[in-house]
């Protein structure tokens, strides 16, 4: 029997399945686009026009200058000028105030005679991320003001610190989420969709028919997996292109190397998907396993959103058995730092090791089923 022809007939069927099922198409192409755009435009730590309340006990020229400086950036907008301490909390409670700056009465005297003055910043700690960001910005603005003042009066012992962010000079969040999104999307499509499509054959009873046919089991699995491998790869390229043209995320390293490594990762995810499918009898089962076992840890523990190194040790270990963790490192290396294969050998090695491990487990499970 001509296996290539048989295989082709099988692939054709898979293509019909995918084209007929709108939900699949939506997940395949709608989700990556939506996710990139949402991450790109909505999820950002930057803010504009944060509402600041000011309690100015000094009410002199210096404090006016400071206030003008802080609000000149466009990041802060004066919400209210407070008159007394007891007015402070109501702004936070009603949600209209984001930050309060308190200027003491002796502000200018302290500043010019003692070289040190104190400013109090009060932020809403119920939203820690936002509070942190606001505090950082306000500090920077106040420091800027001091710098300006003292440059004119030429005070000594000022240390100018100049920082430079290598590989991402403007600290664009896109530099982080484009690699992260590629890793997640490829995982969802490759692992979840293949485990779903294999589980569907089992659920509908058609797997039985295929197994009774002369098709070798390996061809069945390959036939189910191949179309998704190609589609995942197209998605990876799509996200890279969106990242490049919409969010200016560059590919500094070799594009060919990048695409090759995408392929390696897709195969890792596909072998994981087939492993999941051998342990699930229904689509719902496969879906739950993919969502809880794959998507959640990959989102939270891969270093995509939270840095791995600041996690408790046990979570770090879990993070290190997740393929996405290594792939995000690989992507950042090749895309942003422009490194060659020699710098990411360990990560690539881990992915290859995982492929072998997943496939071995899948094969064992499969054989047990047949016996």
């Amino acid at each position, binding site marked *: 029997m001509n296996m290539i022809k048989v295989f082709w007939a*099988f692939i054709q069927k898979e293509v*019909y399945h995918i084209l007929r099922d709108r939900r699949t198409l939506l997940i395949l192409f709608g989700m990556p686009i939506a996710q990139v755009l949402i991450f790109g435009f909505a999820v950002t730590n930057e803010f504009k026009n944060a509402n600041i309340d000011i309690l100015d006990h000094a009410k002199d020229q210096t404090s006016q200058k400071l206030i003008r400086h802080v609000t000149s950036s466009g990041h802060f907008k004066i919400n209210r000028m407070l008159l007394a301490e007891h007015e402070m909390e109501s702004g936070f409670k009603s949600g209209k105030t984001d930050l309060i700056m308190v200027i003491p009465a002796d502000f200018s005297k302290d500043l010019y005679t003692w070289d040190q003055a104190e400013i109090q910043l009060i932020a809403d700690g119920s939203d820690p991320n936002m509070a942190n960001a606001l505090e950082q910005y306000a500090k920077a603005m106040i420091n800027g003001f001091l710098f300006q003042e003292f440059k004119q009066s030429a005070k000594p012992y000022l240390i100018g610190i100049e920082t430079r962010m290598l590989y991402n000079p403007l600290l664009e969040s896109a530099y982080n989420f484009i690699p992260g999104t590629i890793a997640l999307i490829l995982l969802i499509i490759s692992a979840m969709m293949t485990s779903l499509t294999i589980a569907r054959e089992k659920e509908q009873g058609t797997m*039985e028919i295929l197994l009774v046919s002369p098709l070798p089991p390996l061809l069945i699995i390959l036939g189910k997996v191949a179309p998704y491998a190609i589609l995942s790869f197209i998605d990876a390229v799509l996200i890279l292109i969106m990242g490049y043209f919409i969010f200016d995320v560059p590919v500094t390293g070799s594009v060919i190397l990048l695409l090759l490594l995408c392929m390696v990762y897709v195969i890792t995810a596909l072998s994981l998907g087939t492993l999941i499918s051998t342990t699930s009898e229904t689509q719902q089962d496969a879906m739950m396993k993919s969502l809880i076992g794959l998507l959640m840890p990959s989102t939270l523990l891969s270093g995509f959103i939270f840095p791995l190194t600041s996690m408790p040790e046990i979570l770090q270990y879990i993070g290190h058995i997740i393929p996405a963790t290594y792939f995000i490192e690989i992507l950042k290396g090749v895309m942003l730092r422009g490194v060659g294969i020699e710098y990411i050998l360990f990560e690539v090695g881990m992915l290859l090791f995982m492929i072998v491990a997943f496939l071995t487990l899948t094969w064992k499970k499969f054989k047990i089923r047949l016996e």
Partner: protein
Amino acid sequence: MNSYSIEVENLTKKFGEFTAVDNISFKVAKGEIFGFLGANGAGKTTAMRMLTGLSKPTSGQGTVAGFNVIRDHEKIKTRIGYMSQKFSLYEDLTVRQNIRLFGGIYGLSNQEIREKSETILHDLRLSEVSSKLVAALPLGWKQRLAFAISMIHDPDIVFLDEPTGGVDPFVRRQFWEAIYEAAGHGRTIFVTTHYLDEAEYCDRVSIMVSGRIEALDTPTNLKKQFNASTMDNVFVKLVR
């Protein structure tokens, strides 16, 4: 070649301590309609999986379509057809695409597939709906189409696993006519069913109880042997 399509001796399947199929032996002649009955969990499915090459027997011997069930199970697969109660076609493919797919899987040439498609569509009077999705067909039509497709590669034996589950009496009757026609062409039919009146349509019937074949004969002889008026009574007497 001998005149039997299925011959098994002392076929046994154990899952750990549990014996699902316990030393079954029987022969099925070419062109025979062989009913394979038993309560749920009696071991029917396991036995059928061994005969269709899906499961390896723990012990025992046998041939199906002339091939050894232990050594040549891959060859068996090319000579048998299979249709299950869990509907065995792809609902989101059209009638014609389903025929093409299974023709392709069984290695038919494009020419053969075209001819077979026309024959099947014509015989089942499905020509007009050939480009409709299978999901849109009434259950009875689907089942007859699935049966026709299970024979697309002219197999020696067709295994039918509760083929008439859930269809109305009229469609069941039609389906059995199709079975008779296939058997008339010399094909062996191996059928499991829950409808005991259908057992009467079989040439011979075996009844499995807890992994063993407790009775095997023509329906007439079985009724005589168990002093029962219908196959239903035979079954109840045996299983209880």
